[in-house]
């Protein structure tokens, strides 16, 4: 257990190792540690932020979807109303058209009937004149009684 030169040797060795550690070991390791700490901190903050943003975006998306749904419902309602309107319009138009055609047909029929009646009247008067002629030919001159016959034909 003698004290000898080993003591000085160990002191020198220690100075060298501590110097080496101070110069080449401690700073890079500690720098890396601190930088990583900072990175992790930033990463966590970023994660929190993006989480918040995600929630926000989700809410926004929900809102948009809701709005769209409401719009869709509105459009559907409008379309229904429009369809009903169109159908009603169509019905009205149909009724009017029918009435129009009906009245047109009635008018035509009446016209035809009038025409036929006129014609008939002419023919009846012609027949009447002819028959009267035949009768009168025997008794009177047709020319003398023409005006009477014409009046008669008009009255028919």
């Amino acid at each position, binding site marked *: *257990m*003698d*004290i*000898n*030169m*080993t*003591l*000085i*040797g*160990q*002191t020198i*060795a*220690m*100075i*060298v*190792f*501590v110097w*080496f*550690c*101070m110069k*080449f*070991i*401690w*700073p*890079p*390791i*500690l*720098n*890396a*540690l601190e*930088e*990583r700490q900072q*990175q992790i901190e930033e990463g966590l903050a970023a994660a929190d932020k993006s989480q918040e943003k995600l929630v926000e975006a989700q809410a926004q998306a929900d809102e948009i979807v809701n709005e769209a749904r409401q719009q869709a419902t509105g459009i559907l309602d409008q379309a229904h109303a429009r369809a009903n309107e169109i159908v009603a319009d169509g019905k009205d138009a149909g009724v009017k058209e029918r009435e129009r055609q009906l009245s047109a047909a009635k008018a035509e029929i009446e016209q035809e009937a009038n025409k036929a009646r006129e014609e008939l009247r002419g023919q009846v008067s012609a027949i009447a004149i002819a028959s009267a002629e035949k009768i009168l030919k025997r008794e009177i001159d047709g020319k003398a009684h023409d005006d009477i016959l014409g009046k008669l034909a008009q009255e028919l």
Partner: protein
Amino acid sequence: MAAEGGHGELTSSSYIQHHLQNLQVCRDETGEWVWNTCAGNPIAINVDSMFWSVFLGLVFCTLFWRVAKKSSTGKPTKFQAFVEIIVEFVDSSVKDTFHGKSRLIAPLGLTIFVWVFLMNLMDLIPVDWIPMAAGAAGIPYMKVVPSTDVNITFGMSIAVFFLIIFYTIKNKGITGFIGELTLHPIAPSFKGPAVIAAPLIIAFNFILESVALLAKPVSLSLRLFGNMFAGELIFILIALLGIWQLPLHFGWAVFHVLIVTLQAFIFMMLTIVYLSLASESH
């Protein structure tokens, strides 16, 4: 449990003595360098202690340097993570105790902690393995645990001692250092008739404070040396027990793991405490 290279027949005491003998080289009276006849010679070097101490220091430097070179802020490798755990442990210990700013204290603590730990760890290698291998290679003595050599522990604590003085003078000035040695614990009075007592008080203070100052490195080194030497001695005694040494050796080794770590930690912690005391005024 045979001891190679011993002289004479093998007895328990010669076995123990052989295990406690350093491999020494020294300069004798004629100026010749001689091996192993150095008892009482101050110009001697314990080659085995020195070798293992420097070897383990190099192991520490190499391992940590490789990590330091490649250390990145990204995902660390497993070994890098392990090294970082130790570095962070030392760093937090230093930050808890030492409040000043110093580029030296933390690396000093790390070096002391890992180096002393590795030196102590050599104690867990079965006591005969390396000495027997060395004996087979023709080396008569081989003490493999540097921290069981009082020269090694004193060598480190003296470095710490000089650092204590350096930090005291650096932070408090040379007058502060002298004042710390002479004006505590009893403050001398320089006014009135009490001035006559001042030199006495100063002398008294100086004796007390220099003992306190010198006790720091002495206790630091003797604590480590005593623990490791006792542990080593018990390992050697256990090795004498024949087959019963196996369970006993295991039990003591398990217990010794605690001592190994604890003593390394205490050496580091006390160094930090002493240096923080040196740089803070109270």
